[in-house]
Every structure is written in structure tokens, then in C-alpha cells.
């Protein structure tokens, strides 16, 4: 008799514990899922990008690019980047099909040789065009690419934020972890700290000038990346965001890669 009485009680206490005390992993995933949910359904967008690279001595170098992104249901986004500056890489274009758990598919078009090269996607930690942004920093941020852990609440520049730690699932990532400051009101990443393979702070990204498009999707006008180990910085400016322009799969194939100018 005592046993039958005890068991339901035990079960009840386990259930209530599960309901009330969400683990920090669960809370971290919930925050990331909500941010992901709020950014779903944009279909496609195009934008112009300018990168300003500076080293410790203050030498400056400028890149101009155009970006097209297609949202893919139940998979990572498709992305086409066209290089306009510097002049010697004008016409070079980069096509990637990102995937949540599989490695991304990537092609590079070299206009001088008229050659499309399928490239290894394992070098995602490499600098993008010599900047402080790595390929993995600018590629589509899929939910399944990380495991999450909620750390704390914190106020950043007057905005209430969740601070979430995320660890890349991919063995080829250049990071052990990232700390993301997500604002509680709109679930936008305001700041990201990147920790290198030795787990020391490598870079800090801050996003500025968020604007809302189609009454739903928030995009920053400016992203500032600081490399703490080299003193180099890259400012990435976004202009002319256009959503739902009618792009389709056909605009992200190898023929379009070669025609992109």
C-alpha cells in the first residue's frame, strides 16, 4: 500500500520539477528558437554591402559586395554574393547552399578563367576577403548549427538582454563558443563575443542601426567586428535592403552564378 501511494507522489514531483525549473540549456534553446521563429518567412532579400577593413596602424581597405538570399524551408538558406570592389576581383561570385547539420555546398566563380569551382566548405573559419569576418560569421545562422545555454540577464546600452552561450556543432568551426546578447523585446542579436579554439576571447561583433522591414524583420545597418588579438577591425555596412523581390531557386544555380555581375 505504501508503495502505491509513494509512486504517484514521486511522479508528480518529477513532473512539477520539469515544468517549473527549465534547465539553462532548454532556456537557451527556447530563446534561439524564438529569435529564429521571428525571422522566418521573409522569403528572400537583397542588399548592398560595404566592408571597411582597418589594421592597427589605421591603414584602410574597402570592399563592395552585393548579396542575395533565398529562404529555404526545412534547410539552410541559399546565398549569392557578387564582388564589385576591389577592382581586380570584380565579377567574382560566391554561391552557397547552407545546411543545418550537413556541410554547406559552396561554389566560386572566377571570371578571368570563366571557371566555376566547387570548393571545400571545411575552411569556414578562414577570413572572408581578408576581413575580420570569417565565412561562418556571415553564413546563414541555422538553429541546429549550435547547442545553447542561457547564462544570465543583462542590460546592454539600456536594452534588457538575454545572454546566451552557443557552441558550434561543426568540428571545422574556428570557435569553441560564442556569447550572444539578444534583446528581450525583439530577439535581435546586439552583440556577439567569439572565443577561439583555445577558448580565449578573439573577436567582438556589435550590431547597430537596426531597422524593421515588412513590419517584422529586423536588420542592422552596420556591423562592427573588433579582433582583440590583432587590433584589426572591420565595419560592415548594409544598404538598400529589399525583401520579397521574387527571387527563386533558379537565381541561385551555377548558371546564375556565372551571369552575376
Amino acid at each position: 500500500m505504501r508503495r502505491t501511494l509513494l509512486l504517484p507522489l514521486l511522479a508528480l514531483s518529477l513532473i512539477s520539477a520539469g515544468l517549473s525549473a527549465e534547465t539553462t540549456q532548454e532556456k537557451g534553446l527556447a530563446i534561439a528558437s524564438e529569435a529564429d521563429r521571428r525571422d522566418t518567412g521573409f522569403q528572400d532579400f537583397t542588399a548592398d554591402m560595404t566592408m571597411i577593413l582597418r589594421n592597427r596602424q589605421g591603414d584602410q581597405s574597402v570592399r563592395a559586395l552585393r548579396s542575395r538570399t533565398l529562404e529555404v524551408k526545412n534547410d539552410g538558406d541559399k546565398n549569392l554574393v557578387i564582388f564589385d570592389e576591389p577592382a581586380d576581383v570584380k565579377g567574382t561570385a560566391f554561391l552557397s547552399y547552407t545546411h543545418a547539420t550537413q556541410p554547406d555546398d559552396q561554389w566560386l566563380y572566377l571570371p578571368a578563367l570563366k571557371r566555376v569551382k566547387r570548393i571545400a566548405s571545411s575552411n569556414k573559419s578562414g577570413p572572408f576577403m581578408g576581413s575580420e569576418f570569417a565565412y561562418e560569421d556571415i553564413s546563414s545562422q541555422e538553429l541546429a548549427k549550435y547547442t545553447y545555454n542561457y547564462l544570465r540577464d543583462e542590460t546592454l546600452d539600456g536594452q534588457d538582454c538575454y545572454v546566451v552561450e552557443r557552441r558550434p556543432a561543426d568540428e571545422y568551426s574556428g570557435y569553441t563558443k560564442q556569447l550572444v546578447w539578444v534583446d528581450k523585446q525583439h530577439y535581435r542579436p546586439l552583440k556577439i563575443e567569439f572565443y577561439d579554439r583555445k577558448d580565449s576571447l578573439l573577436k567582438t561583433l556589435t550590431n547597430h542601426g537596426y531597422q524593421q522591414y515588412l513590419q517584422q524583420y529586423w536588420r542592422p545597418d552596420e556591423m562592427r567586428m573588433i579582433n582583440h588579438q590583432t587590433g584589426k577591425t572591420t565595419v560592415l555596412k548594409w544598404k538598400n535592403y529589399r525583401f520579397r523581390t521574387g527571387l527563386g531557386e533558379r537565381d541561385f544555380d551555377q548558371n546564375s552564378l556565372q551571369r552575376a555581375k
Partner: protein
Amino acid sequence: MRPGCFIPSARRILIGAALLFGGIVGQNTYAGEWSGRIGAELRLFTAAPLDTRQGEDNLSLFAEPEYYASWNDGRDSLTFVPFIRWDQHDAERSHADIRELTWQHAAQDWELSAGIRKIFWGVTESQHLVDIINQTDLVENPDGEEKLGQLMIDLALIRDWGTLDLFILPGFRERTFPGVEGRLRPQSPVDTSQAVYAASEKQRHLDAALRWRHTLDDWDVGLSHFSGTSREPRLLPGLNDRGEVVLIPHYDLIDQTGLDLQLTRAAWLWKLEAIRRVGHGPAYYAATGGFEYTLSGPFDTATDLGLVAEYLYDERGNASPNPFQDDFMLGLRFTFNDVQSSDLLIAAIFDRETRASSFSLEASRRLGSRWKLAMEARGFAHTSNDLLSHFRNDDYLQAELSFYY
């Protein structure tokens, strides 16, 4: 200066095409834009030439402007890329060409282009067996990577089962060869004025080609067939009008079937190109296969280091006019991922039988935002029993400075 050899009929077709789509351009036209590059190249040879008529160290200037305009939301475009080079010693290397003059229309499941274009097929690094649409502009560089513009109509069908390209190729372009005063040529110069054709229509023979290409997960596959005048001539000895021994290009009618295949697995690229050619002497197979493995950021640097190894095979063996018939290529590719986009490729090709070897080094670096410096060096060793012996005194170091606008 020798203008590129454009056949009058080809020119008429082009003007007709230009007039035809000139009418369509009317609405929705974007202002076209010019870009391009100009540059100077200096070649320093380490030894005196084998033939006293050949030049010593050489200076050369070149320009390659590009005009591009698009309309209909980018679905139609016009591209024009002329090229011109002046060379200090070699009259054949001073030449002009239209690399591109093409109109292109892109629809949902097809694309059509008409005009002069360059098309590249293939995946391997050491040689490009499958690539056959464009003629090699061999005076530009002994590596054969530079191509002449080819007049064509190309219809691409873009479907779920892949992309099928159908080509009609009117107007054959002769291969360019270094002239009497040029270096990096056979010991007897090639006399292109005496070129012999298997086709009775000679350069006006209509060539055709098709290629199917598809991507299946990690695999990229291409299957192609070409029917027409061989881009590669057989070089047979003869006499010029002064009674000197020269090599005369013979252009055969061939059928070539090609396969190109790449498997991309994490840091590994596995590559294969294979051809079967009929009509160019006895039918034969040739292939190139190997891998490229990329180490990302080794030794705590931002550099990517690519290790390239390929085997080059030609069924004809030593009877082959291609020196790479049983050879290994080993290469190291450094991509420094710096602000100047510096890179360095060091490669060597070894012949398993003759022991001949050739070495190359190619490096480039951006200077400021509009200049680029490219260095190139080639050397040849143990060539006594090999076709490469023609180049045994032609080891060189080259610097090329380009301005982009």
C-alpha cells in the same frame, strides 16, 4: 601588329545579331559600364636562346577593357571584351583578339547566348583535357590557360535532371604560336600561314558540341561531346618559302567525348577528367585524376594550404605530342587570406619515364586597391629525352603589374 583572324561571315552574323537585339534594347536599358585592366609584363630568361633569332629578356604591354550592359531586370545582357598586346620581340605575340562580344538572354528554364564567348569545362589543375570549346592563345603563356574568343550560339536547358548546353560553333580559330623571334617555342618555328585542314571548308567548317552537367549532393559531374576541327593541331615538319625548316599545323576533324567528375568531401576534393578522341591519329584515351586537400589555418595562421596531387595519362605514350603522358603533378597552394589577397602556387610535373620535369611558381598580391603584382617562374630539367627539351634554355622569371579600373 596582327589583328585576330575573324572571318567575314562571322562578322556579318554578329552585326546582324547586334542590329536584331539593338531593337530590343530600347526599353529598360541600364547605362552600360566600362571596367578592365592594363598592364606591363617583363620576362627575364636565365639562358641565351637556342636559336639566335630568338629574343632575350622581353617587355610586353597589354590592355583588356570590358563593357557590360544589362536590361530586362538583368535577364538580357551584352558583354564586350577586346584584348590587345604589344610584345618587344615577338611579332606573333603582338596581337589583338575579341575575347567576348556576346548577347545573353536568361529565361526560367533556358538561357541563350549568341556571339563571341569563352567557355570553360573541367575540374583538374595540371591540364585541362575536357575543355575544348575555345582555342588556346598559346603566345600568351606556355601553360595554355589563355583562350581566344570563339563565335558560338549556346542554348542551355536548365532542368531537374541537370543542365544541357547545346553549342553551334561557326568559325574556327587557329592556335597561336610564338613567332621566329619568340621564346618558349619548338626549335623549328611554327609557320601558321601554311596551316592544313582536314575539313574541305577549312576554317568555315561548322563545329558542334553538347554538355550535360549536374550536381548530386557531393558530386559534380559533366559529360560532353565535341564534333569538329581539333583545337590541337599535329605539327609536321615542312619548309617555308625561304627554304627553312618549319613546323606546319595540321588540323584534323575529330570527335571527342569527355567526362569530368568532382567529389567534394569536407577538406578533400577528388577530381577526374577523361577523354576519348577519334580522328587525331589512332583513337586514344587520356585522363587526369587526383585530389586537392586543404589545411585551414595550419600553424595558427589565417592561411589555407592546399596540397594538390594529380596523375596525367595519355594512352599514346611517347608517341603522344603531349609531353604529359605518364606524369605526376605535385603542387602547394597558399592562400594567405590577407587584405592584399596574396596567393602562391608552387607546382612540379615529373615524367615517370623520361625523368623530365617542369617547375612553376605563380604568386600574386594586390597593391593598394587598384594595382596587382603577379610573379611567375618556370623551369625545365632533365629534358633530353622529352618533348620539353625544346624549352631547355627557356627557364624564365616573369613580373606582371596590372592596373584595374
